[in-house]
């Protein structure tokens, strides 16, 4: 950097932002606040205002008295964690493979890993329908075997897993890349077996990244709508997850019910987000892990 060029930097008196005129700073910060408020804060607050407009008692009975709504909560709480578990195992395996081995097609695999983020969830749902549906590729064979995938729990699981596939792997790959393989090689040369290596060396080093990936994955899995909508078939009390239930209640002009479920979904998301935020805050305060100095 040119010493003469930076103005504020050169005399070490702080950041360049201090050089911007006050009106510009107020304008930019104000605009950022306004956009966040209009697009994010107001709708979320409105959901709660609507949900609790008839009091907490009414809100509670909306949630508990409708068996279909109760079922949707349980369904989401079984589909989302299972998908997260699958993606945790997959993410660990993928991150390990992609960071510890150099092989032909590695870059392709790395790119394919991002595909679920790029493809529309509706398309993903449609693909599952085309493969596992009764008219689909594996449909007749599945029917003979007596397994129902589409319009049932396995379909919901597949759709959710597909959409949230990259979260854990994406979190772990850069982390494991930066950690390097030396500690693992040291453990191997000291006589550690594969499981000892994973539990005693790799996992302790990646635990925060892994947990962060799992939390993000879970938040997304609970809220998934598009892909699940296509494969669920919308059978009330059977294949409606919470996001689908919100929509269905709304379509049936049951606004209080719809808002009640939406508020619970939002609370779950906010709780997850808070956990992630706390985790990030806490890990950043820890002394940076090192042991690798050049």
């Amino acid at each position: 950097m040119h010493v003469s060029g930076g103005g504020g930097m050169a005399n070490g008196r702080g950041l360049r932002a201090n050089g911007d005129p006050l009106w510009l700073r107020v304008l930019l910060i104000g605009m950022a606040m306004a956009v966040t408020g209009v697009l994010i804060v107001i709708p979320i607050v409105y959901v709660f205002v609507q949900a609790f407009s008839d009091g907490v008692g009414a809100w509670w009975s909306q949630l508990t008295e409708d068996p279909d709504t109760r079922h949707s909560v349980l369904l989401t709480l079984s589909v989302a964690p299972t998908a997260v578990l699958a993606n945790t195992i997959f993410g660990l395996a993928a991150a390990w493979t992609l960071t510890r081995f150099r092989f032909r097609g590695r870059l392709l695999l790395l790119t394919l890993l991002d595909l679920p983020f790029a493809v529309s969830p509706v398309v993903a749902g449609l693909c599952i329908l085309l493969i596992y549906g009764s008219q689909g590729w594996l449909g007749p064979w599945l029917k003979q075997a007596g397994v129902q995938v589409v319009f049932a729990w396995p379909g919901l699981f597949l759709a959710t897993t597909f959409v949230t596939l990259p979260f854990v792997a994406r979190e772990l790959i850069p982390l494991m890349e930066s950690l390097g393989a030396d500690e693992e090689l040291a453990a191997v040369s000291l006589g550690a077996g594969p499981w000892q290596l994973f539990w005693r060396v790799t996992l302790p080093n990646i635990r925060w990244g892994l947990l962060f990936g799992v939390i993000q994955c879970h938040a997304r899995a609970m809220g998934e709508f598009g892909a699940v909508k296509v494969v669920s078939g919308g059978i009330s009390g059977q294949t409606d997850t919470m996001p689908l239930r919100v929509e269905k209640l709304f379509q049936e002009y049951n606004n209080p019910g719809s808002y009640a479920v939406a508020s619970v979904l939002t609370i779950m998301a906010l709780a997850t987000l808070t956990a992630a935020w706390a985790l990030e805050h806490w890990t950043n305060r820890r002394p940076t892990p090192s042991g690798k100095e050049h």
Partner: protein
Amino acid sequence: MSITIAGVSRRFGDFQALSGVNLQVPAGSLTALLGPSGSGKTTLLRIIAGLESADAGQVLFDDRDVTQLAARERGVGFVFQHYALFRHMTVAENIAFGLRVRKAAAADVNQRVQELLRLVRLEGLGQRLPTELSGGQRQRVALARALAVRPQMLLLDEPFGALDARVRQELRGWLRRLHQEMHVTTVFVTHDQEEAFEMADQVVVMNQGRIEQTGSPQQVFDHPATSFVMDFLGNVNVFHGRVTAGRLEAGPIRMAWSGYTQDEPRNATAYVRPHELEIDRHAEATALQATILQVTPAGSLLRVRLLAEGYGVELNVDVVRERADQLQLRPGEQIFVRPKTARVFMPEPEYVI
């Protein structure tokens, strides 16, 4: 335990890291693998440890073929350049790791950890985390961790490369003494010839995936087998020239050389070490006139940098102190320089069809 490397090759994509390497490391020896980066020395070390696999060839510990044996079953202590300490474990837990994965009894583990902390002079630091230690201390923990499982051999990859000069000097002496006490077969990788010569009883000079020369430090230094070894051992004056009928003419050097007696001239390179050049105030027949550029005291020597204008080459000359005091050399002065001896290497002729 001795190590035998027989015809080991390794390729990474288009890069031939090792090609047909043969090497014998005697039991109880301290061997240095010396070479520039990319010469394959680290790859060879990792193949001995089982952390890397060979495409071809065999690795034998004594008479046992361990080529197919997994790293964790080879009983090898490995020390990494950047320590590779387990960052979430304390010093004591790091040292205990090898014993714990082998399910050793807790009492034995504690006793052994204390023993090793004493050995590497880190008593009382067992509860520290690696981040709370200096580089030299970390490397000693890495050594203790490797030694805890009583390995049959110790392999070190540029063990002191990341440390500053003073600590490096200290640790070299310490490791040398440690080796004398324990007599465990030790192989270390380095690109620093001084380190290799100071510590090792066998030096293996490597270049482009091959071994150029193996021998004691004295042998390698006094009788370099190839021009690469001569060059790499560093700080040498190089003169390109030719030989004809037993006479060498290379820059200022004119001397008899019996290595080639035919009449047809051939290219040759003469190497003269700094201490093999003699500085004089008076002209002699074979002497070469030069201007002093720089005079640097270095311990018992005076390092003199010269410019031989007649040939446009810079020369490095080491003068012993007594002689330097006689000569009273100053930058800018004109002096005469004469090679006492030279080593000549003749490249294989390139035939043109």
